C-alpha cells in the first residue's frame, strides 16, 4: 500500500506552468496573484535544498503556526487540484476510482487522493487535517498517513461555539503546536508567532475594509478577486505577502469608489453568490462582468475573514475565534441571518448558488436559503448544478445558458 517513490517532475512542471501564467499576466498588470501561487509551489520544490520541513494540510489549518516555525506548507485541496489540472484530470479521477474512492465523493478530495496514489504529491514530513468545512476534510489524513508513511495530526473544531467548545479547540491548537514541535525538534518561538499574528491582524483589517468598500454602488471590485483572496488566505495567512496583496486590491477598490466608478461600464445585475465557484471556470466569472454587466457583490460563505478579532498577543484565542467564524462547520441559522443581512447591505438583485454535486453540507441548505431570500428580501436564486473539479459534469456553455435565463428573469422583475 505504501508509496515508495515520488515523481518530483510532476510538481516541477506545475511550478513552471504557474510561473508561465504569471509572466503572461504581467503585461495586463494581473500577475500578483499568480506570482504568489507560483511561489508557493516553488517553496515546496526547495524544501530539501533549504533543509526545511514540509507539512501538507487541509483547508483553513492555521498556516501561522507553520510560518512561525519556518515550516513550508502544502495546501492539499488547492494545490492538488492545480496539479491535476496541469497533468490530466481524467487520469487522476481514474486513479482515485481504482483505489475505491467513490465518484460521488467531492472531486476536490478525490484529486488529493489521486495525487497521492500516483505518487505525484510531494512527500511531506507530516499531514495536518481538520473538520473545518466538511466530513471530507475530516477523513483526509488517515489514508494519506498510511500511503505516505508519515505522521499526522487531526484538528477537531466543535460544532457549536460554546465556552467549552472554545476551550476544547484552544487545547487542540496547543496540541497541534506540540505536534509540530515534536516533528521538527524545535520549540515554538512565541514571539515570532506574535509577529506572524500581527500580519494576520493586518490582513484581516484590510479584508474588512475591502468588504465595506464593496457595498458601494456601482460595484468597485472584480468578480474573481474574492476567489483570489480566499485562495491566498488559505495558502498564506500570517504572511506579509498576503497583506501586500490585499492592500493592492483594497487600493484598486478604494480608487474606484472614490471616483464613483464601477468595475463594469454598465452594471446591470448585482449578485450574491453562495458556496464556491468551479475552479476551472474563471473565464465565466469575467464573461459575467463584461458580457452581461453582472457583478458579484458579496459571497457570504467566503467573506468570513472579516469576522473574528485578532489579538497578536493571544494567538491561540485569536485563531480559535477565526475558526469559529466559519459557518460551514456549525449550525445553519446564523448563516441564514448572515445571507439575509448581506443581501440587503450589498443591495443584491439575485443570488447564484453553486451547487457542487460532491458537496453534501452546502447543497442540503439550498432550499432553506432560497426560500428565505425570496420571502424576506424578495430576491430569486439560481441554482447551478456543477462540479468543483470535474469539467465534464456541466459545461461552461450550459452554465452560461442558465445565467442568461436568470438574467432575463431579473430583467423582468425590474
Amino acid at each position, binding site marked *: 500500500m505504501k508509496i515508495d517513490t515520488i515523481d518530483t517532475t510532476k510538481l516541477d512542471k506545475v511550478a513552471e506552468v504557474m510561473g508561465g501564467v504569471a509572466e503572461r499576466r504581467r503585461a495586463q498588470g494581473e500577475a500578483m496573484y499568480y506570482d504568489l501561487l507560483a511561489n508557493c509551489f516553488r517553496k515546496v520544490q526547495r524544501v530539501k535544498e533549504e533543509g526545511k520541513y514540509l507539512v501538507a494540510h487541509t483547508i483553513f489549518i492555521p498556516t501561522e503556526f507553520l510560518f512561525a516555525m519556518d515550516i513550508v506548507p502544502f495546501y492539499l485541496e488547492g494545490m492538488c487540484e492545480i496539479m491535476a489540472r496541469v497533468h490530466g484530470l481524467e487520469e487522476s479521477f481514474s486513479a482515485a476510482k481504482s483505489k475505491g474512492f467513490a465518484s460521488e465523493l467531492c472531486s476536490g478530495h478525490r484529486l488529493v487522493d489521486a495525487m497521492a496514489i500516483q505518487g505525484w504529491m510531494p512527500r511531506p514530513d507530516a499531514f495536518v487535517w481538520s473538520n473545518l468545512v466538511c466530513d471530507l476534510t475530516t477523513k483526509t489524513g488517515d489514508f494519506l498517513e498510511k500511503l505516505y508513511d508519515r505522521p499526522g495530526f487531526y484538528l477537531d473544531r466543535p460544532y457549536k461555539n460554546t465556552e467549552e467548545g472554545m476551550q476544547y479547540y484552544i487545547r487542540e491548537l496547543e496540541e497541534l503546536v506540540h505536534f509540530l514541535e515534536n516533528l521538527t525538534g524545535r520549540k515554538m518561538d512565541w514571539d515570532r508567532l506574535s509577529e506572524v499574528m500581527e500580519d494576520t491582524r493586518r490582513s484581516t483589517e484590510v479584508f474588512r475594509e475591502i468588504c465595506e468598500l464593496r457595498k458601494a454602488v456601482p460595484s468597485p471590485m472584480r468578480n474573481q478577486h474574492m476567489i483570489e483572496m480566499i485562495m491566498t488566505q488559505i495558502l498564506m495567512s500570517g504572511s506579509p505577502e498576503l497583506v501586500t496583496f490585499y492592500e493592492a486590491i483594497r487600493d484598486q477598490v478604494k480608487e474606484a469608489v472614490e471616483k464613483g466608478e464601477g468595475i463594469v461600464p454598465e452594471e446591470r445585475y448585482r449578485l450574491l453568490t453562495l458556496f464556491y465557484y468551479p475552479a476551472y471556470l474563471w473565464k465565466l466569472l469575467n464573461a459575467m462582468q463584461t458580457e452581461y454587466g453582472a457583478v458579484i457583490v458579496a459571497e457570504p460563505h467566503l467573506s468570513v475573514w472579516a469576522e473574528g478579532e485578532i489579538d497578536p498577543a493571544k494567538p491561540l484565542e485569536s485563531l480559535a475565534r477565526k475558526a469559529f467564524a466559519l459557518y460551514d462547520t456549525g449550525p445553519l441559522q446564523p448563516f441564514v441571518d448572515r445571507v439575509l443581512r448581506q443581501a440587503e447591505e450589498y443591495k443584491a438583485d439575485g443570488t447564484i448558488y453553486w451547487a457542487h454535486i460532491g458537496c453534501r453540507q452546502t447543497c442540503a441548505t439550498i*432550499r432553506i436559503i432560497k*426560500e428565505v431570500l425570496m420571502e424576506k428580501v424578495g430576491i430569486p*436564486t439560481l441554482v447551478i*448544478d456543477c462540479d468543483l473539479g470535474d469539467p465534464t459534469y456541466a459545461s461552461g456553455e450550459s452554465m452560461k445558458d442558465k445565467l442568461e*435565463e436568470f438574467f*432575463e*428573469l431579473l430583467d*423582468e*422583475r425590474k
Partner: protein
Amino acid sequence: MLVAGLDMGSLTTKVVILEDNQVLSWRVKTAADEGEVQARRAIEDALKDTGFALQDIGYIVATGAGRKSVSFAHKQRAIGSCLAKGVNRLFPSVRTVIDVGAETCNVVRVNDKGALDDSMGNERCASGTGVFLEAMATRLLHMSLEEMAQRSLLAEGVAEISNMCAIFAEQEVISHVHREPPTPMNDIIAGIHASMATRVGGLAKRVGIKEDVAFTGGVAKNVGFARTLKESLGVELTIPEEPQLIAALGAACVARDESAKKS
C-alpha cells in the same frame, strides 16, 4: 399591430400570432427542417388565409430549445418567462406551471404580479419527458401514445416500476410483459405513468408547488398521464385547451410588450 411568438421545440415548432393583442392564428408543426427554415415555414403556414405575410409582422420573439437559430426573430427568450406570461394571460390565478414537452420538462413559479420567481428544467435526464412515454409506447408496448393514454385510465392496479432511470424502467417493463403470469397491460401503463410522474413531480417539488398549478406542453394532452400526475402531486391541475401553445403564446406576449416599448 401584428406580433408573433415562436416556440422552437425539439419535436414540434409552435407559432402564435397576435393581432392587436387577440389571437389571430396558431400552428403546431412537426419539425421536418432545421431551425431557420423550420421557423419560416411554420410562420408562413400560420399566416395562410390571414391575408398577411411575414414582413407584416412587427415583432417576433423566439423561445424553446432552438430559439437561437432563428435569425429573423427580433428577440429570443428562455422558456421560463414565456411560460409565465402565456399562462398568466389565460389563468391569472396560476402560480406554478409544469411544462412537459418532447425532450424538456420545465417548472416555473409565477408571482402575483405575473412575473417569474423561479424556473428550473430537467438537466441530463429524459425520464420525465415526452420521449420516455413515446419510447415506452412505440418501442416496448407496440401501441400509439393515444392508445396508451386511454388504456391507463382503465387500469385496476399499478405495476411497480423503479424510477431511477429510463433505462432500468425499460428493463422492468419488459420483465412485467414476460412474467408468468404477465402483469395486466393497463397496470404496466399505469406504472409507467407513475414512474414518470415521480420524475416530473420531483422537479416540481424542488421548485416548490404553489396552487393553482397549470400543466402544459405536449404531454399535457395525454389524459392518462395528466390524471396520474394530478394524483401523484395531490393538487388540481389546470390544463389549457391547447397546452402545447403556451410558451409560444407567452413569447407573442413578450413580442407585444417589446414592440410597445419601441413605440
